[in-house]
């Protein structure tokens, strides 16, 4: 187990990159503490898998260094880094039994057979696959296959970090949930550093203590799931996390105050950067429907389980609101207001208001 440091890491798939657009990773500086559960979250093509392959050593970065416990491992091949990786599609050795599959990484490293047996049984117990140990791995169901690939990562007791590259993609929805909680449970038991790559916000938010949100090769925000939800540092995070995502409304800053469609909007704190064009970000959860505030017209109402999503129009701008009770009807005239402590100003996508109280 180890602390992982990424220092000025850049990567381009072109041999001679010119300009930042040629970089899949633009410049990453990151510290991951020992034993943490992290998620790398971002849309397809944002560079998260590239980053993962650089950490595991399958890919050499164009620039920058990777340190495990302050030891430079940038030049080391995967088998010398003591890492484990679980791939999108379960990788199992078809002709071997489940036991031999789990024992494979240990036997390759010349571990004594009695220790191999003890470790395999322990991991099998954790994964609840003890009764399958003698089965040929080819005959397992996809979720069990994926469990075995996870097991092969966890079986080595000297493993620095276990990485998961969208491991639940091929798993049936009802088993996804089970495997996800299993993973969380495993993390608490083995206390290894784990990095979980996904484009699914639910997976990231339920698994990780810290979520790293990436977009176009850059880290946009690092924070706990609550922080990402409550105070997105970038409109992208606001959009990407939450269902539906944050409302991003065109706004104007005049004399330090924010205006949307001519209405003055109270925001969480002082606006940085002077007057000009900006955006207001407010989550649908914090848009209140009532008898005061901006007049709006309801365009559509969608019931989503226990709450409803109301699409309302102010001027030409669509605002989504989530409400639990008093659902208005389509075409109805209503009034909207925003909860001040959850309303923020963004400039060029980045957060531009002081935190409330400062």
């Amino acid at each position, binding site marked *: 187990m180890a602390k992982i440091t990424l220092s000025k890491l850049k990567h381009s798939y072109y041999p001679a990159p010119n300009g930042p657009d040629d970089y899949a990773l633009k410049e990453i500086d990151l510290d991951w503490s020992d034993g943490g559960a992290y998620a790398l979250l971002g849309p397809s093509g944002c560079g998260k898998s590239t980053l993962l392959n650089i950490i595991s050593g*399958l890919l050499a970065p164009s620039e920058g260094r990777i340190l495990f416990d302050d030891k430079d491992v940038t030049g080391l091949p995967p088998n010398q880094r003591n890492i484990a990786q679980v791939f999108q*599609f379960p990788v199992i*050795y*078809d*002709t071997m039994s489940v036991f031999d599959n789990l024992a*494979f990484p240990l036997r390759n*490293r010349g571990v004594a057979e009695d220790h191999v047996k003890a470790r395999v049984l322990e991991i099998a117990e954790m994964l609840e696959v003890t009764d399958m140990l003698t089965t*040929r791995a080819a005959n397992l169901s996809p979720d069990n296959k994926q469990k075995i*690939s996870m097991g*092969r990562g966890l079986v080595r007791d000297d493993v620095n970090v276990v990485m998961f590259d969208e491991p639940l993609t091929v798993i049936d929805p009802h088993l996804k949930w089970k495997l996800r909680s299993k993973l969380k449970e495993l993390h608490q038991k083995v206390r290894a550093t784990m990095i979980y790559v996904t484009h699914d916000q639910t997976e990231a938010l339920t698994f990780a203590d810290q979520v790293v949100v990436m977009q176009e090769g850059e880290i946009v925000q690092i924070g706990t799931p609550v922080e990402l939800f409550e105070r997105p540092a970038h409109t992208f995070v606001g959009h990407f996390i939450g269902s539906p995502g944050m409302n991003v409304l065109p706004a104007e800053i005049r004399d330090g105050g924010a205006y949307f469609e001519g209405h003055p909007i109270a925001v969480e704190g002082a606006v940085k950067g002077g007057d000009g064009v900006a955006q207001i970000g407010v989550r649908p959860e914090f848009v209140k429907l009532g008898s005061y505030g901006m007049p709006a017209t309801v365009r559509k109402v969608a019931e989503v389980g226990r709450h409803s999503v109301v699409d309302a129009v102010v001027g030409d701008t669509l605002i989504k609101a989530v409400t639990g009770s008093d659902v208005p009807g389509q075409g109805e005239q209503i009034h909207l207001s925003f909860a001040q402590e959850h309303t923020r100003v963004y400039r060029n996508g980045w957060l531009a208001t002081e935190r409330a109280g400062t």
Partner: protein
Amino acid sequence: MKTQNQKAWFFVLPVLLLVAFNALIPMMTVVNYSVQETFGNNVFFFEGLRWFEELLNSDRFHAALGRQFLFTGIILAIEVPLGIIIALSMPRQGIWVPVCLVTMALPMLIPWNVVGAMWNIFTLPEIGLLGYVMNHTLGIAYDMTQNPLAAWITIIVMDVWHWTSLVVLLSYAGLVSIPDAYYQAAKIDGASAWSVFRYIQLPKMKTVLTIAILLRFMDSFNIYTEPFVLTGGGPGNSTTLLSIDLVKIALGQFDLGPAAAMSLIYFAITLLVSWLFYTLMTKDDAK
């Protein structure tokens, strides 16, 4: 209630007719010949199972069968490992892929009798490139029309040259279908190159290899044209494989009855070995 009609038979009919005229009816004429004796003039005498008994006890048949199994065994033992090795060393991507594939496919495009004729000329001691170089440059006495060992080596090398590509192309198809993640996982698991071959590549190639071996077995076991054109079964009877012997009996000696009996036994052996091999290879999958 399920409506039943007999329409399905109508759709099966063309295939039934095709199989009947293509396989069943010719086969039945062979069965018919195999229990009779003829001296020409379309006069037949019923002989029962006499030809089968005689054939199964004949030294000539045993010798030809032995040569046939030896030939098939040797070419399989060379072509399968060689084909896998070539497939493993071929590039997976880049501009050399089509070059390799076309080069590999070329020998298979040449008609069988042309292959035989090519190798015949190639090995002639006085004018063939190989024959001349062997005899006059290297000083190794090599004449496949005189020496049985030279004849055997020549037909084996010819078959390897002609058909290893089939194993290569099928193995290659199996290899390129392995996702990168398998190799990456093996790297992380610290697997050796041999382990990667034994536990990833070989299992993933198993299905195509089974087909490759089956095809090579059937083709080499029934081989006729190439060795006939090359050696004509000689010198002596040293390269008289089953099919060559069969043609000698049927058309050379015009012993239609024994030849028919031999065809049936020949067919039964090919079928049996293929079935046994296929059943053994697919046994694990059913579990």
